[in-house]
């Protein structure tokens, strides 16, 4: 497997050879920022196209097929359109909070990007509580949504924001608990540690029943966390027109739109990390030849590929199920997912204590 830390290390050495230390850090930050923005924009464009095509396939349609080959340039055209659209300024809104909200939402998802394991050695920050950091920063997004709903001074947005607050705070519990289950299994909060622990077998296979339960709960809660159907109540278009972002226009609306797709990627990415080995190729214990072949596929492709497959599942949910009602949504979380999750955590502890699980590489801190 190619270790991308060789590349980053080489760049670091190159820069250090003719720059002062502080300048090296600044330059590297700028470079990473640019890379992140680029990846962010490209992923969003890809996801917009991907969802449209998938949804079209579900609905017996063709989807975008006019702009560029197979409609590939359609999302570029849409992005350009949204960039040049007018930002309509509204009376009677809280100007500062109204403008701040989309940036909070997008900042939250960008911060979460920082800890995703893109490939072997390809990670922006890697420290011992990576997963904890991820959960912490992804909660900032709900703040942006609440602010957006409140500052718009519109009854629909307010209801949308309140729904969103109730929903995200509730489902964060489920996400947190299913993550803890897997962290307990891996024995570390470090993202690299979790990936390395799966070098022999992905957690979804080695983790026994509790890992599968945790995965299902994580996918349900993750869908709710990203405000996607069937949990898209904060922006339920047939009830609240567009929910919390009804009053937004131009690129401010675009930020919400982008953040939704990027959050989809983050949720899928974290699921990949926790259950499908992150960038770790598919390894089956004992099949050395097969494992060697798998190692030849570059690690970023493993990571992005797995994340895209998982996001396909989330998109599949959206285009199949009708929407839940707010009380049913909360009942699902508090009455079903949360107790199951707590029970599952105990089950996982038992599995670990009695060693009922499959092969797990010991984590070397």
């Amino acid at each position, binding site marked *: 497997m190619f270790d991308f830390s060789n590349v980053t290390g080489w760049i670091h050495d190159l820069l250090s050879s003719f720059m002062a230390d502080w300048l090296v850090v600044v330059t590297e930050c700028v470079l990473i920022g640019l890379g992140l923005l680029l990846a962010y924009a490209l992923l969003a464009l890809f996801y917009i196209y991907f969802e449209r095509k998938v*949804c079209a396939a*579900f*609905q*017996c*349609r063709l989807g975008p097929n006019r702009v560029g080959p197979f409609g590939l340039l359609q999302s570029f055209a849409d992005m350009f359109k949204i960039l040049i659209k007018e930002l309509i300024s509204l009376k009677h809104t809280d100007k500062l909070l109204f403008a701040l909200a989309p940036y909070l939402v997008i900042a939250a998802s960008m911060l979460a990007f920082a800890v995703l394991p893109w490939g072997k050695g390809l990670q922006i920050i890697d420290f011992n509580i990576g997963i904890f950091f991820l959960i912490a920063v992804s909660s900032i997004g709900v703040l942006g949504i609440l602010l957006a709903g409140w500052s718009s001074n519109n*009854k*629909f947005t307010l*209801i949308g924001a309140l*729904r969103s607050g109730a929903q995200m705070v509730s489902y964060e519990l489920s996400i947190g608990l299913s993550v803890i289950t897997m962290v307990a299994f891996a024995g570390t909060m470090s993202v690299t540690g979790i990936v390395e622990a799966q070098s022999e077998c992905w957690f979804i296979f080695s983790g026994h029943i509790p890992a599968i339960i945790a995965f299902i709960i994580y996918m349900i809660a993750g869908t709710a966390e990203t405000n996607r*159907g*069937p949990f*898209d*109540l904060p922006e*339920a*278009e*047939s*009830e*609240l*027109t567009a929910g919390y972002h009804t009053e937004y226009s131009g690129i401010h609306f675009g930020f919400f739109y982008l953040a939704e797709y990027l959050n989809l990627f983050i949720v899928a990415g974290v699921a990949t990390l926790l259950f499908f080995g992150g960038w770790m190729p598919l390894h089956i214990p004992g099949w050395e030849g097969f494992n060697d072949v798998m190692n030849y596929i570059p690690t970023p492709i493993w990571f992005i590929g797995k994340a895209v497959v998982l996001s396909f599942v989330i998109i599949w949910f959206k*285009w*199949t*199920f*009708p*929407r*839940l*009602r*707010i*009380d*049913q949504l909360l009942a699902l979380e508090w009455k079903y997912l949360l107790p199951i999750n707590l029970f599952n955590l105990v089950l996982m502890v038992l599995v670990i204590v009695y060693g009922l699980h499959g092969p797990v590489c010991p984590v070397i801190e």
Partner: protein
Amino acid sequence: MATIQEKISKLFPAATFEQADTLQITIPDAQLQSLARTLRDDADLAFDFLVTIVGMDWKDSLGCIYYLASSTHANTLAIKVSTTDRENPMLHSVSEVWTIAEIFEREVYDFFGIVFIGNKDMRRLFLNIDWVGYPLRKDYDTNPDLNPVSIENERQSDGTDMYLENAEGKIEKKHRLIFEKDDFVVNIGPQHPATHGVLRFRTAVDGETIKKIDVYMGYIHRGVEKLCEDLTYPQTLHFMDRLDYFAAHNYHHGLCLCIEKAAGIEVPRRAQVIRVIMDELSRIASHCLFIGTFCMDLGATTMLFYALRVREQILDIMDKTCGARMTFNYDVIGGVMADLDENFVADVKALLAVLPKNIKEYNKIFTGNVITKNRMEGVGVLSKADAIDYSVTGPSGRASGWACDGRKTHPYSIYSELDFEQVVMEEGDSMARFKCRMKEIEESARIIEQLIDNIPAGDICAKVPKVLKLPVGKWFQMVEGCRGVFAVYLESDGSTKPYRLKIAPPCLPLAAVVDHITSGNKIADLITIGGSLDYIVPDMDR
């Protein structure tokens, strides 16, 4: 009929009787309420279904004709009440006897200025609150300067006047607020994805829970009834396409039947069969659209496309024969406009072949889904008594257990010869309304199956005089539209134009019942309930 007449004349000596196609009782206003009560409560009479209230201006007097039917027998009856006071016309309200009268009387007030004593809501229904004059009065001034097109924001009243009779028989005017002072009122509509047109619900909510809904309509009111009074009979027909535009054939059929009955025209057998096939095709198309839009309201967007596939197939069939996909203008007085397309039979058979497969698919994707069940079962329960009280007909009424299918209760055209079931369900919730329509698609397919191979040869249209004059008189016709009983009242003064053409659409009661069945539910349920009632705004607004 004779027995009804005898019974009423014994109880109400002041009543006079007139036999048109429907027995009409003329009664002084003072006795209206007790007559209404007798008609509804007497076990033999049992006229519990108020079809419509026809406001009338006979030039020397103003008045109303109440058309009644029954949920238990097939009789119909009309009550006529009038007042000669043109300045301050007042009649007694029957809204305590039939709840739906509250909204019917508002319509009469809006168009004729007749105030109803005892009705708790005397706002205009369709026109702006500052509209000058009452348009359906014969002396209405149509000068556009009186009612200029406003570029100001729409004014609305938060309260209503009501006129109540006190113990001494004196009439007092009182003011009432629609909402309580500190209610949080959310405006759902007129521009809203789930109101199925420009309908507006002013919704008082407590958190997510709905306290009260005030239905505000009239945004697509075009004054069809008024326009018809200046048009010849054949010209009035094309408006029927523009009421329930998802199922225009049935409405055309209704008005044609009424005019044909008045003119004594015998419709050729071929035309009758074609009309019925078209009606039932429309019903399938309309119910398919219902399934699609309803599922979309619930967030299941994909179902829309599955349902639209069948609808498209039907619209293509219509297109070939009628030359249009929505506004067909196909039924004419005496028959139909054009003969069937040469591929018609083959196309319809192709449709019938794919229908069962599609319905199975709909059930697989949507009906069995656990989220769907949670969203629909037990939501917006309308009891049978309330359905009759609110005149909620069509699939929505039948889902509540009221066998109100006009094709069975008051058979017209060739429906009495056909073998089909009336779909009646008991639950009365949104799921029942949904399933009821699903099953009706199957029944409609059954009707078409019986007819498609037996379309008789012959004329498609009877001989109708170029200038059609109807004799002096009045006629009333009910047909089963896709959303309920569609009724037409026609009064002729012997000229080429109708003296009064009253259209009683099924969607007005459907919208009126929303408040009753949503209060206490969640905002999301309003969408479910509204969608499952399947009202069409141009139909209620006319």
